[in-house]
């Protein structure tokens, strides 16, 4: 591999992801669920609209998870598959999905971490299946001649960056 590669998310994927997240929120009585990829890009957000900047939140989430991954290795663990940050009123639970994506659940004292953890486990299983299928499809698409939406868009790219 020479670079980090590309993958894509289509409308169908997005809809299936948000369905899983909506079920999770209802069952866990949580406030908001976000999906962030390991490079810090926000993929989806479901539930109460966050009062914070979700893009900044996503980049910090990825950094948090990556830093904790390295801490895990230092103490002899292959990874921490989930993290829990407890606040006085608001808390967050983070779980790895397919080693490429992070599920973040924000919740308050209307539920418990035990309930969130239990429900997240099933959602992680569902999302893992979904993401593996997406990655396989992106890899197949990369091998095809016709690739992404920018195929043959060199002139348009040149024009975009003209002074």
């Amino acid at each position: 591999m020479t670079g980090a590669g590309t993958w894509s998310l289509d409308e169908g994927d997005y809809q299936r992801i948000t369905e899983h997240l909506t079920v999770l929120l209802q069952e866990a009585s949580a406030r908001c669920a976000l999906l962030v990829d390991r490079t810090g890009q926000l993929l989806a957000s479901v539930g109460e609209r966050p009062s914070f900047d979700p893009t900044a939140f996503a980049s910090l989430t990825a950094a948090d998870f990556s830093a904790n991954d390295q801490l895990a290795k230092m103490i002899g663990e292959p990874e921490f598959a989930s993290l829990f940050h407890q606040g006085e009123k608001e808390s967050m639970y983070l779980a790895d999905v397919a080693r490429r994506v992070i599920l973040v659940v924000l919740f308050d004292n209307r539920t418990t971490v035990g309930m969130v953890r239990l429900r997240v486990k099933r959602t992680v299983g569902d999302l893992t299946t979904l993401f593996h299928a997406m990655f396989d499809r992106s890899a197949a698409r990369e091998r095809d001649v016709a690739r992404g939406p920018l195929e043959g868009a060199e002139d348009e790219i040149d024009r975009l960056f003209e002074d």
Partner: protein
Amino acid sequence: MSMINYASREINCKIVYYGPGLGGKTTNLEHVYRKVAPDTRGKMVSLATETERTLFFDFLPVDLGTIRGFKTRFHLYTVPGQVYYNASRKLILKGVDGVVFVADSQVERMDANIESMQNLYNNMAEYGYDLTKIPFVVQYNKRDLPNAASVRELQAQLNPGWEVADEARQVERRDPAHPNEFLVEQLGGVWVERAPHYESVAITGDGVFETLRSVAKLVLKSLS
């Protein structure tokens, strides 16, 4: 790892500014933050020490325009330049789509530049990324200082080029930013490619957008 989101019609790409400590990486991002329209950028996040040295990273998302109906969003990151922060520096490179190496032009910083460039190659290799095959731009910063080394010397030390083995790429290519120079040329019977380079004074903004435009264009072209 660029991510194409068909649902929100966005292409998200990650660009990392790398280089020795106090070289001007954060200053590059701060200038971009100040100059782009507020509706095309997000919040700038800086994880810095009390003395404003980058501890983990700076982060700035910017939109650079629309292509084929897709909004192009670039996530700009800096790494901490100080040698002992290598663990966090490496984490930031994960999933990178394009790299800007911000070199400090001051003669006394040449060794620090070389060490940082070597560290960049090593960290990229640990992820299995090949710096000679992904969008990569070198910026020579602090050109206004009296103790700045010549660009020729900096190029020789930091951007001497790599051999082009692929015959299809063995074609002379002029450097659009420097009309008398080549990005790909034959030297002593060997085809050599160099990363595009730009001179800058990040604190006044000179060269900052030229560098960003150059790497962003290379990233989008790598997807086309």
